């Protein structure tokens, strides 16, 4: 090739002009999280090193007092046990989901997702109704003559394990199912043609290929489990005190803020270490994508006939699925029982407990408080989260992961830390006790959900549409209103629904930031369950489940309609 033109040296490259828009759009969420999330957590960290003057006294006590050492050990041990149980139960379920027909799979999926989206508090309350001394399980066992005396299933280790495994299992089932679907069916055929038995296929092909999905799910479970509060607090006994419970006890009973802060820092650092490891190993997307496994060209499914082992696995999977939905289903007959006792099956049916619920000003006021909190949390988090998602998508690729990490941190850090930190920060200001303050605090929890759903919707938005609109003469505002907004509207709607569920189900923040007058429905329920379960709580549970189903159905109808349009 001949150079016809005299060669010039290129002028120094200028950085691409991205403008201030991305920063302006991201700023509100940054400010919100700085004030309502990072600042209170930093206050706690400071407090753990002494209120006046630096001291390691609190940490020294954590290591020296045997009780505290035992709690720390217990927390990680129980979290590990829950993780193992989740993985063990998830394999048969994921296998079953992957090997049934399309229509059956849809039904089975509902059995996984319904508990996933039902408030953890409701599920915990239902388990207590089933497992307690005079609960459903014991009455069935005794009336069938299998046992003479009631067995203690709850307020001990088994209660904590059952409750937490039930709450956290979907975090393994979903990525594991995705991992199964990412396995190419021809791999199984190839292994069989080379002489592998069903067991060898499972051990040598399926297990290694699904391992990354399982490890991702297990990490999320473990991370959640070490900071969990509601379920262990309600279903465990004194021997199952976890870090989170020790924190509340030090604040509410012992009034030892320094020690509570030190415990919080231990919890925070443990969570962040696990989170960092997860992010290094799997990337941030895996945290929310339900495994993120790309479907194989011909995804793993049933090859010919099920083997003997396959039948056993499928049967176990079905039993586990039944256990997943059981507490949710059983709430309904219990709520419609005519009996003042938690008898099963109920001797006769009536709506008296629902009537009781609606007649009691305590419950009605708590519903209003919940809605007031949501009326702040949902619109605010939708506006701020959407803006941040659009802003982040326009940031230079180098900075994007950092912003995304900051924005999702509130989903990762145990809520109990946020509750304690905000309580400490806000109580001197005299703004506690208002449901609107609670709503503002919940925005920090809700906005990340909006951020993630809108971010996902933006990934499906063809950037050339934006260029085409501008090229045809549209300014940025017009382009956003007429082209981008219609495209990402389903994502925003889904984000709003997740934000609402987060706000409406929140117990932990409400426990710290509300009082008797401003308590929300979940807090009123929590107190009822902690004190003594009466049938009105079953009615409240049933109403919350129905409401959740309604909201999710609306979401489903909405997304389906926009997809068909």
């Amino acid at each position, binding site marked *: 090739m*001949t*150079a016809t033109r005299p060669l010039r040296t290129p002028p120094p*490259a200028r950085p691409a002009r991205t403008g201030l828009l991305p920063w302006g759009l991201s700023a509100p969420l940054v400010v919100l999280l700085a004030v309502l999330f990072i600042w209170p957590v930093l206050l706690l960290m400071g407090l753990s090193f002494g209120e006046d003057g630096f001291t390691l006294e609190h940490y020294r006590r954590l290591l020296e007092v045997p009780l505290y050492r035992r709690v720390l050990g217990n927390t990680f041990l129980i979290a590990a046990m829950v993780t193992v149980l989740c993985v063990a139960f998830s394999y048969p379920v994921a296998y079953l989901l992957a090997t049934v027909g399309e229509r059956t799979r849809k039904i089975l999926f509902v059995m996984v997702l319904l508990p996933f989206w039902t408030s953890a508090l409701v599920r915990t309350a239902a388990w207590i109704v089933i497992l307690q001394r005079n609960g459903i399980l014991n009455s069935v066992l005794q009336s069938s003559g299998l046992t003479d005396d009631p067995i203690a299933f709850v307020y001990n280790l088994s209660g904590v394990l059952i409750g937490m495994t039930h709450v956290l299992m979907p975090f393994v089932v979903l990525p594991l199912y995705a991992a199964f679907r990412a396995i190419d069916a021809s791999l199984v055929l190839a292994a069989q043609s080379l002489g592998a038995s069903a067991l060898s296929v499972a051990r040598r092909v399926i297990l290694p290929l699904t391992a990354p999905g399982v490890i991702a799910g297990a990490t999320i479970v473990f991370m959640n489990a070490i900071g969990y509060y509601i379920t262990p607090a309600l279903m465990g006994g004194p021997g199952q005190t976890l870090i989170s419970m020790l924190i509340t006890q030090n604040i509410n009973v012992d009034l030892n803020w320094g020690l509570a802060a030190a415990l919080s820092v231990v919890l925070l650092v443990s969570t962040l270490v696990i989170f960092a490891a997860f992010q290094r190993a799997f990337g941030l997307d895996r945290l929310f994508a339900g495994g993120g496994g790309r479907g194989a060209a011909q995804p793993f499914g049933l090859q010919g006939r099920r083997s003997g082992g396959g039948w056993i696995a499928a049967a176990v999977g079905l039993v586990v699925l039944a256990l997943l939905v059981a507490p949710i289903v059983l709430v309904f007959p219990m709520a419609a029982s005519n009996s003042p006792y938690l008898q099963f099956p109920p001797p006769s049916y009536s709506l008296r407990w629902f009537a009781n619920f609606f007649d009691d000003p305590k419950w009605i006021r708590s519903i209003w408080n919940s809605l007031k909190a949501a009326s702040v949390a949902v619109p605010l988090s939708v506006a701020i989260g959407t803006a941040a998602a659009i802003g982040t998508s326009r940031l230079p690729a180098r900075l994007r992961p950092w912003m995304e990490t900051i924005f999702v941190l509130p989903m990762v850090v145990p809520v109990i830390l946020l509750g304690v930190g905000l309580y400490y920060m806000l109580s001197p200001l005299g703004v506690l006790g208002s449901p609107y303050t609670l709503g503002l605090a919940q925005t920090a929890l809700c906005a990340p959900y909006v951020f993630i759903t809108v971010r996902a919707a933006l990934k499906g938005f*063809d950037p050339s549409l934006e*260029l*085409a609109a501008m090229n*045809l003469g549209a300014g940025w505002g017009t382009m956003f209103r007429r082209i981008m907004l219609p495209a990402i509207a389903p994502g925003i709607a889904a984000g709003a629904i997740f934000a609402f569920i987060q706000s409406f189900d929140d117990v932990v923040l409400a426990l710290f930031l509300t009082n008797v007058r401003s308590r929300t429905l979940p807090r009123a329920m929590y107190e009822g369950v902690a004190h003594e379960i009466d049938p009105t709580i079953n009615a409240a549970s049933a109403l919350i489940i129905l409401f959740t189903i309604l909201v999710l159905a609306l979401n489903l109808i909405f997304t389906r309609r926009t997809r068909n349009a």
Partner: protein
Amino acid sequence: MPDALIGKAVSIRGLWKSYGPQPVLHGLDLDVAAGEFCTLLGASGSGKTTMLKVIAGFETTDDGAIAIDGRDIARVPVAKRNIGMVFQNYALFPHMSVRRNVSFGLEMRGLPKDEITRRTGQALELVELGPFAERLPGALSGGQQQRVALARALVINPDILLMDEPLGALDKNLRQSIQLQLKALHRELGVTILYVTHDQEEALHLSDRIVVMDKGRIAQNGTPEELYNAPASPFVAGFLGECNFVDGPAGPWAVRPEKLRPGPAGAGQREIQAEVETVIFLGAATKIVARGPGGQITSVVTSGPAAARPEIGSRIAFHADEADILTWPAA
């Protein structure tokens, strides 16, 4: 469209663009005359798409000037440039009907309603999509979507129409019929078109002028005939059409396959000896592949009787007219 749509001239001087340390455009100069169909032809990474993006205003330039009809547009924002663009994936707004897609640019210009209706209708007639006006883009075939994209870009009476591999997603038969329509449309409307493709046949088929690009530089700029008959470099000769490169005793030379015929050379002709490897009957023509001194050569001749074909494995002479020999000064 009756509104006299005559394209404007584009003039580009000293265009530099880099992503990171590596320049993508090396100080390019390019002139496109009003109403001309000019094609940027190059492999991926040659800088041709970047060139379009810079002209459309989607990318900033590091240095250089872009003028339309003598007016510098470097500082004009994208939305005010009045440049039509047909995207590789069409970029039709999926939630708007075909009609709303086409009228979008007119609405953005704040034209009166009846004019929008009239011009949108005309544009849809022009691409023969009137009956599909109320459908959503997702309900159309690839070829129909392509025509919607074209109508949408043309309806705003653009000063220049940029097309980024617009036929790449279509199958071969459809591509050829749309090429014919596009050529007719261009003649009819007199719009200036700057077209990007990596397909040399498409470039030959459509263009008044072809600009061959290589690694961010212009390798040659000329009519299709000039580029084929007098390629400026071995790169252009190899990129546009097939070419035999021969290492002769007097230095390297090249010849197009249809100019190389079996048989000994006469006066004013050049000869090479080569061993016949394959003979392929292509219908009207027959292709002879042989091993020559510089490597493989091909000769394409009008098909004669089967008996006249050379024997595989035989060593025969090929010749070409001196006038058809391509040589370049040593680089």
